[in-house]
């Protein structure tokens, strides 16, 4: 019995390190809940895992990453299920983003436009939440939205894209994606009027099947956005299969 417990104790440290085998996690979590000495152990040694992320050399992120994060947050919609006592009207942080210097300016403007768009799309929901939002409507000729439709294993995928024509940027929002097969990634393609496929990025959806992909390549001259499954981690230079998810660019 003592040996069995010691084995569990040591395995539980894998849990604290985020490296337990997925099939072991339920058993380890159940044990952790029932065993005070293991909780004490994880409480004590687990603190180490909270500071390990501080070890890497500091690397300055590119300026565009901030705008990219803000755009993705805006596109993901309002945070769900906020406790009522904390609810406040959604802020509209547009002017500051517009003041950033080049070269981040183009992305900042795009992020700001996307914020307007996302908030505009979500205005109904915001009204339900009591937020006093009256955002300006996006200019239709500059912001276009189109859907992506799936077939086969991707028949249940919900895909939509927001194309900022003026900025040459597109956010592709995908939900209910099936996990990519082991060792494979999803790859996004721009299909030109002449039928040529141009790679526009590889991605993996999160565990819930969601992913927001920012396409920094202009859609001008393309007629379709398509997604295929390609060898990971880098994808392919040309599609190796027929797309099961695609959308006609408006």
């Amino acid at each position, binding site marked *: 019995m003592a040996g069995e417990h010691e084995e569990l104790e040591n395995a539980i440290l*894998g849990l604290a390190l985020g490296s337990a085998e997925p099939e072991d996690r339920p058993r380890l979590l159940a044990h952790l809940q029932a065993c005070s000495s293991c909780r004490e152990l994880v409480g004590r040694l687990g603190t180490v895992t*909270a500071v390990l992320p501080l070890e890497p050399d500091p690397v300055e992120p590119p300026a565009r990453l901030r705008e990219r994060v803000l755009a*993705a947050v805006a596109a993901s919609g309002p945070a769900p299920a906020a406790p009522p006592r904390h609810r*406040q009207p959604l802020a509209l942080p547009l002017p500051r983003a517009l003041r950033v210097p080049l070269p981040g300016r183009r992305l900042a403007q795009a992020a700001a436009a996307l914020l307007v768009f996302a908030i505009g799309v979500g205005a109904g929901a915001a009204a339900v939440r009591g937020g006093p939002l009256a955002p300006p409507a996006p200019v239709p000729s500059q912001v276009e939205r189109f859907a992506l439709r799936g077939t086969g294993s991707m028949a249940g995928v919900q895909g939509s894209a927001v194309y900022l024509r003026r900025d040459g940027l597109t956010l592709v929002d995908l939900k209910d994606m099936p996990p*990519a097969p082991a060792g494979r990634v999803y790859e996004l393609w721009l299909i030109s009027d002449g039928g040529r496929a141009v790679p526009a990025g590889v991605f993996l959806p999160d565990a819930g099947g969601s992913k927001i992909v920012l396409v920094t390549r202009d859609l001008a001259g393309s007629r379709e956005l398509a997604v295929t499954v390609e060898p990971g981690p880098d994808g392919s230079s040309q599609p190796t299969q027929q797309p099961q998810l695609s959308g006609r660019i408006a």
Partner: protein
Amino acid sequence: MTPRKSDLSDPDLVQALAAGDVDAVRVLYARYGRLAYSLAVRILGDPGRAEEVVQDAFVRVWRRAASFDAGRGSLRTWLLTVVRNRAVDYLRGTAREWDELELLGEVRAEGEGSDPWREVSQSLERAAVRDALAVLPLEQRQAVELAYFGGYSQQEISRMVNVPLGTIKSRTRLALEKLCSYLQGRGLIDGR
């Protein structure tokens, strides 16, 4: 007088995120964006993928902020755990169902302080963590690094370095015990 957003403490910042305040994301990014990116680059070795991971992590924290209990753990730890887990998924081509809030109450560690001291504090913390890892025997350090920065299970590490599983488990535990003791001595984590 209403405090500026950039002056908010981390617990207050979580409340602002949970309330749907997009400005709070700007503050969160200004505060921890570089740490998050550095961690993602460390794990992936690929700046492009690191950007993807950081983007995903901030969206996840934004979407789940209302579920976060600031009394149980630190916002920084949560964010960096999300970055680490997502980066490991990318590295290994998996999409596991992580619940970073699950163990957060057990692994809290603070290192926040006010803005003027944050950079200095982070630099000191980094030095302490590196010193702590440096004093470990190589095989213990390897066990911890492969698990944390590589996402490898103890079973996988055992096969990789051709050492019995029980030995890997013992090495991991010994390494964590030593790190804990060292970092407590440096005042970086709580003594319990």
